[in-house]
Structures are given as C-alpha cells and as structure tokens.
C-alpha cells in the first residue's frame, strides 16, 4: 500500500466525512435545542440537492443562484415543518417529537417523489470540475467545495454559538431548557432556529455532493443514518464533536475498504462505533452525564 | 446488638475528600441521626451506605456483611431500605402500586408464573395489596391509595416513599433528608410516622439538617463537618457540644461570646 494510495483513501475519507459531519451537525443542533433525534434530517440533505436541481434545471437559474435558492427553500421547509408539526405538540415530549419527525421524513420524501419524479437528477460540477493532484493522489475540485463548505459552516456555527447573543441562548437551552426559559429565553424560538440551521446544514451537504452523486427522492435515509451515527460517535449535543464524529466515521469507512474489504465497510464502521459506545457511553467527546441521585 | 458498623469510610472526588474516615455504630431498634451543615458530606456518606456509590476506603458492615461490595438491589434484599432526597417515585403509578413495587424484594412471582397467571401468584398479589394498604395507613396515606404519585402534594410524596421502603420489610431504614421542604404540620406527621415505624422494630438512620426534627426523634446523633465526624452521642449532649455549635454557627461568633 503506497503512500499515494493511502493518501487517496484519506481524501475519500475526508470527503465522505465532511458530508457526514454536516448532517451530524444538523442532528446535534436539533438535539441540543429539543432533546430530539430528527429522523427527517436525511430528508433535508435530499431536499438540498433536489431543490437546487429544481431551481437550476426547471427554473433555469444560473448555478450559484440555483444553489442559494435550493438551500433557502430547504431552510423554509425546515421552518414550515417545525411550525406545523413540532411546535403543535404542546408538551414537547421528545419521544413524541421523534416519531413526528419519522412521519415527517416519510412525507417529505414522498412529496419529493410526487413533485420531482422517481429518477435521479444531476447538477453540474461547481467551477467546472476537474482535479488537483496532491502528492500523486487526486483531489476532485468538487471535493474541495465539499470540505470547504463544511469548514465554512463549522466556522460560521462556531462564531454564532460563541460570539452572538443568539448562540448564547442556544447553548443555554442545550444545558437546561427550563432554566433558559426562566431567564427569559424564548425556547420555542430556539427550537425553530435549530430546525432552520439543521435544514440549512443538511441542504448544504446535499447541494455539495449532488454534482458527484446526483440526488433522488430516496437518498435521505442512508446518509441520515451515517449522520446520526457520526453525531453519536462524537457525542450528542456538542457541535465540534459532531464534526469529529463525521470525519472519524468517514475515515473508518475508507480505511476498512483499504485494509479489509469494501463489502463490510459499513459493518466495520458500526462495530467500531459500538466499541466506542461500550467504552465511552457518551461518545468520544461527550460529557458523561452521571445521573445525580 | 449492633446492627450497622461504619468503619473508616473515606470518599474522595479528585482533590476533595468529601467523607474522611467516618466510623460509627447503629444499634438495633434505635433512631440514629446524621447531621451537619451543607457540604458536610452527609449525602455522599448516605450514597456509600446504600451502595449507590463506592467508598475509596473503609467498610460498612450490616449483620456482618460488607454492604460496599454488594449491588444495590441485593442490599435491599438483605434488609436495608432507603429513600431519596429528591423523591424517586413512579409517577404514573398509584400510591398503592408504588408500595406494591416496593414489595418486589419480598415476593416471588417470576415472568413465567405471572404470564401463566398461576393461582399462587394471584394469592401473593392479593396479600401484597393488603400489606400495601396497611403500610399506606401506617404512614397516614390510607385514603390516597388510588391517587397517582404525580398528583400527590410534596409532603405526602415523602411519606409514600417511606411506605414503599417499608414494603421491602427492612430491618434498617435509611432516610435521606425526609424533612426537606416540609412545613411544620408535615414534619410532625413525619415524626409520628417515624415513631410508629420504630415501634415495629425497624432501626432508622436519618440524614437531616432540620434540627427540630432531629432533636425530637433521635436516640443518638452523629455530627459531620467537612467530611469528618466531630461528635457522637445523645441529643442533649450534642446540643451543648462547642465543636458542633462552632461547625453550625461558624468560628467568629463563638469566639466573641467566650
């Protein structure tokens, strides 16, 4: 196994890892604000691609504008879904909300099939595609976009989280929703904001990868699972952990292809995840929430 | 006869020694109190006594068996029951069902027998239900039997938890700040219940900082301060012990008084 091969596998891991990280961020944000695992996060990823293709192919907008419209439209779907379904559940019981998002994911993927048909649809590569060679290994320009978008999103989220009033309010919610409400934070607004951010991040991931893999109404669940696994691997509730979880999961899959076999890459990644959970039940970077009696 | 022997129990959290080599005995049939200002290590000691936490050093012998090596549910079956500072009731169950759950340790119906509804399980269930109602009356919750725990006022919830603990037929009952948040009427009801329980032959250890209740009901008192035992004895001696007063009222006041 030469170094260029190893580097090639690492780049593949970085690319997939960035996708999983973006989706995992969406899971972690919603979890932090509501304690809920949003099963519709995979659908936000799908819609990011689908709505961008709709804007580009059907509305005929130029690619950059189409991408913007696609992501904005998905964010809007996130708001509408939160207002019409999540917020209507008055007691905010996390269990019921999770099942509502399961219903939501079915609804969104089925609506996508009705509106955009059953077949996969494509987007052209950003900036004309092409490759860059990195010490012999090849890096697709689109991959640079994917990793770039992830990095910018994480930086933007970090800034929002740590440097803005909204971010402080969201972190307060994450630690203790009741306490946050007492000090006057509109926790319901925080929930909506978390869904909007989750939808935007999921959409960015979908948008960035569609030029390479195309998108279809049913691509949501498979990437959704990977995002959830990454969020758990890193440790729920902590944005940095979600990104670390995503990248580690991406690398795990790549290395298991390289050294073991592509047939079992998913199984191997899951076995490692189960191992991590057994040793650290709260994920790699999660705080151990010991139950105080 | 000494029912419980606490021998040199020490518990450290990082640099802080929450409990420092505490030892004391509890004789059968008495009410023993453990008091001390906030942060004296009372709750930590309590969790060690009930194996909800492991000590770094020392042992807790109950009838010769070291509780610190047993798993919590086996300690209950050995006859040591406990309550919690923030009550851990089963909210959706009625008061009676909560106490019935407490009887888990002393009943035998297994999964298979229950599924097949064997006759002896029905009888066991009926007897346990009667016992539960008796215990509810003992603590004064007779007429609340079918009310869900979630709907009970705070004071009654504490009494319900005591009734549930009694359902495990303990020889030793450990109470973690039972008087916390109670008004005077509720506190005297609690005192009444404690006397009735002791008269049943159950030894009681109560961790508390409500001085009124402690002075009234306890036969002996152990005083903790910053994790160390600074005094032990009957209430009237403890009341006048300068060390105890200093611990409670802080250093400077005492000095200008003398």
């Amino acid at each position: 196994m030469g170094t260029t091969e190893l580097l090639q596998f690492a780049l593949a891991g970085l690319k997939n890892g960035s996708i999983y990280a973006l989706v995992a961020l969406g899971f972690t944000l919603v979890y932090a604000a509501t304690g809920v695992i949003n099963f519709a996060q995979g659908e936000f990823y799908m819609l990011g691609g689908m709505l961008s293709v709709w804007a580009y192919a059907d509305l005929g907008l130029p690619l950059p504008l189409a991408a913007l419209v696609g992501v904005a439209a998905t964010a809007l779907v996130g708001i509408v879904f939160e207002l019409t379904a999540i917020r209507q559940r008055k007691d905010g019981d996390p269990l019921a909300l999770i099942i509502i998002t399961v219903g939501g994911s079915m609804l969104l993927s089925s609506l996508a099939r009705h509106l955009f048909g059953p077949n996969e649809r494509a987007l052209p590569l950003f900036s004309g595609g092409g490759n860059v060679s990195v010490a012999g290994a090849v890096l697709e320009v689109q991959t640079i976009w994917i990793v770039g978008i992830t990095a910018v999103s994480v930086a933007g989220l970090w800034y929002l989280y740590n440097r803005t009033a909204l971010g402080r309010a969201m972190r307060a919610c994450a630690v203790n929703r009741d306490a946050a409400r007492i000090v006057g934070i509109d926790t319901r607004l925080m929930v909506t904001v978390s869904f909007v951010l989750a939808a935007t991040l999921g959409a960015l991931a979908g948008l960035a990868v569609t030029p390479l893999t195309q998108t279809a109404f049913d691509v949501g669940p498979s990437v959704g699972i990977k995002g959830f696994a990454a969020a758990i691997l890193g440790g729920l509730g902590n944005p940095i952990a979600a990104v670390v979880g995503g990248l580690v999961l991406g690398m795990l899959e790549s290395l298991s292809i390289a050294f073991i076999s592509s047939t079992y890459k998913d199984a191997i990644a899951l076995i490692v995840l189960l191992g991590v959970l057994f040793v650290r039940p709260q994920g790699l970077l999660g705080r151990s929430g010991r139950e105080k009696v | 006869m000494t029912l419980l022997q606490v021998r040199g129990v020490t518990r450290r959290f990082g640099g802080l020694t929450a409990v420092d080599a505490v030892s004391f005995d509890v004789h059968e049939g008495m009410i023993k109190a453990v008091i001390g200002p906030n942060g004296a290590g009372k709750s930590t000691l309590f969790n060690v006594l009930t194996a909800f936490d492991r000590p770094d050093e020392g042992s807790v012998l109950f009838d010769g068996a070291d509780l610190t090596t047993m798993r919590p549910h086996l300690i209950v079956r050995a006859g040591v029951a406990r309550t919690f500072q923030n009550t851990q009731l089963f909210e959706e169950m009625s008061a009676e069902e909560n106490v019935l759950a407490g009887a888990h340790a002393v009943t035998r119906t297994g999964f298979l027998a229950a599924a097949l509804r064997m006759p002896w399980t029905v009888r066991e269930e009926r007897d346990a239900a009667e016992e539960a109602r008796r215990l509810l009356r003992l603590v004064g919750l007779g007429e609340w039997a079918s009310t869900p725990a979630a709907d009970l006022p705070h004071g009654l919830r504490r009494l319900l938890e005591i009734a549930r603990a009694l359902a495990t037929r303990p020889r030793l009952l450990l109470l973690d700040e039972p008087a916390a948040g109670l008004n005077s009427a509720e506190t005297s009801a609690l005192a009444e219940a404690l006397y009735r329980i002791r008269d049943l032959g159950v030894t009681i250890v109560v961790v508390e900082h409500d001085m009124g209740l402690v002075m009234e009901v306890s036969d002996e008192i152990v005083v903790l301060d910053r994790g160390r035992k600074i005094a032990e004895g009957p209430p009237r001696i403890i009341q006048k012990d300068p060390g105890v007063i200093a611990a409670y009222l802080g250093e400077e006041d005492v000095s200008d008084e003398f």
Partner: protein
Amino acid sequence: MRRTRIASAIVVLAMIATAFTGCAGSNGASQPDDAIRIGAVLSLTGPYAGLGEPERRAIELEVERINAEGGVNGREVEVLFEDDGTDEARAVAAASRLIEQEGVVALIGASGTGQSMAMRQEAERGGVAQVSLAGGSVITDQFNPWVFQTPWPNRVVVPFILGEMRAAGVERLALIADSGGYGKDGRDATMAVIDRFGMEVVADEQFNRGDTDMTGQLTKIRSAEPDAILMWAAGAEAATILKNHDSLTGMDVLPVYGGPGNARVELLEGAGSAAEGFQLAAGHILVPEAYGPGTEAYEVATGFIGRFTDRYGVAPDIFAGHAYDAIHLLVDAMRRLPEEFTSSDLRDELERTEGFVAVGGTFTFTPTDHNGLSEDDLSFYRVVDGTWALAGEAR
C-alpha cells in the same frame, strides 16, 4: 372536556370498525363481463419507482393500441395495476388480490427480482402465468412452470460482455458491483463463466446503494492492475463510479464495461463527460439500427419508440421495452387460443410461443426455458459524444 372525550371515542371506534369491516367481504368476484383482465404488479413507489413508471406507461400505451385494433378475438383487454412499493409482502398481497378478487388470467410483474420471487407462489397456487420484468437470473434459473421473464437474464448478458472484452484483449478483469440482488447476480454470473473465457478476476469490490463516494474501491482496483473494469450497478451510483474513475490518475487507460442496468438516460446526464468511452451490452432498443433496418424487429421497435416518444415526450428505456414484450407476448398467446380459455390454457399457449418478434428480442419459450432470449438479442454499445453508439469488435 366532554367534547374531546366523545371525539376520541369516535376516532377509536372508527379505527376498530375499519380494521374489521373487511370481514363483510369485499370480494366482489370478477363479474364475467367481456373484458379479459390482466394483473400488473409494478414498483410505482419506493426505490424501484424509476423502473415501475416507464413499465406502466408502456403497458398503458400498448393496451390502448391493442384494444383500438379490436382487442383479442373481439374482447377488450383490461390491465389492472397494483403498486408493490418495492416491498415483497405487498407484492404477494397484490398478486393474491388480483387473482382472488379481480380474476385475472395472467400476471405481469414484478419490477424487482425480490418481489418477483415473492409472487411466484401466489401465481402457482392461483394457476396463473406470471411474466416478470426483472433481470435476476434466479427468476428462471430456479425453474417454475408458471413463471416467465422478458428481460435478458444476467446469465445471457455476462457471457456476451465477456466475449466482447476478450475480443478487445482483456485478460485481467476487475469487478465492482452493488450489494443488492442485481449486483450479486451479475457477479455470480461472471464468476461462473470467467474461466471459460480464459480471463481472471483480479479485484472484487462492492458498494451499497446510497454511497456517496467510490474512490476507495477504485483505488484498490487500480493497484490490482486489471486490463478492464466490469461494473454491475443499476442506480445512481453507476454515474458516481464513472466520475470517480475519470478523476483518478492512471484510470483513464482502464476501460469500463457495464450491463443493461446502466442503459438509462440518467446515467448519461449524471456522468456527463465521464461517460465517454463507457461500453455496455443491452437490447437493440438503444439504437434501433441494431435491429437491422428493414427487418420486422426494426419496424416493431421504431413503431414503439415513435409512439412512446410522441405520447410521453421521452424515448422508452429498456424497462419500457420489457413491459412492451410482456403485454404483447400475452396478447399474442391469447389470440392463438379459442374464445373461452382458462388461465392455465394461457400458460400452456404462452409456453408454445416461438419466434415472436418483440422489442427486447425474438422470444422462443420451451418447457424448460421461460426466457427464450439469446446473445442475438443483445447489442454492444459505447458512449460517444454523450449518447449510445453501436460498437463492439465481435459483432
């Protein structure tokens, strides 16, 4: 409070009622009006929705034409569509419903191999012929007298491709297949005959539906130094593989071969320039000239392609072709039967089909071969300037 209590009571009772009113039996037996009823179980929703839609369009188009030309011995043909949602249990239920309640004389379906296999027990017990539109070899390998298959099974397609590869001088072959039924079937068919072609499989990689990147697998293939890559994938992943292959250095010298599952316009759109030079085997429908201009097959195919494109604005793909063949094989057999016939008569007559010219090829069924297609019904293509072009040395 009272209002919601009554409302919830109604909701609950309504649920219990709907769950069991069925026992009143909605089994309206198929009224013996004159129409001949054929059942069609297709995947109109779920992951295989991309196959079910063109199949349904082809059948609807053709049934209209058949009825316009007088149907079968004066009786109209009616096709009843059921969606199996790419789920075996629903395919079974749909088949038993069509046989029991609708009294169909034959079944077309299903779109997927798994669903087709699930239905065969119903077809057999109902004494009804089943014409599957799925390409899995197992459908006709595990022989069942009631089950027929219109697509070219992988056991016919793979040797055809390997023949082309050997003709192009390939000896060391790398395989990359999806982990689903289609991928495994292609892989098995390859492993079964590879020695006969004096070739050797030097890499055997796999991927899952929904994977976003296959550069790992392709890198491993590159280090095995094959002469060519055989890709067995049906979904969107095929385009991703072509693009990853195009971007990896030293890979462009490695030609990529594929099967009928890749004969989709979505592949050309999705892969774009990366599809240039991609070679695959499929029916003649992709480039009608492959039928041989002036032959009956050519007329049949161009007629169908013309009508389909006029009606739906898009050219029919191979799945539409398989559906066309299924409905016409049944109608052709029915026209050879007397006025009154049972479903088992139809099976027997279908089995006697010989030299029937259709879109997928020229069908000849025998008591032991319920597919009847051969390599003659396949053409070899290469993607040139973004579209299929006839290629292949051996032809």
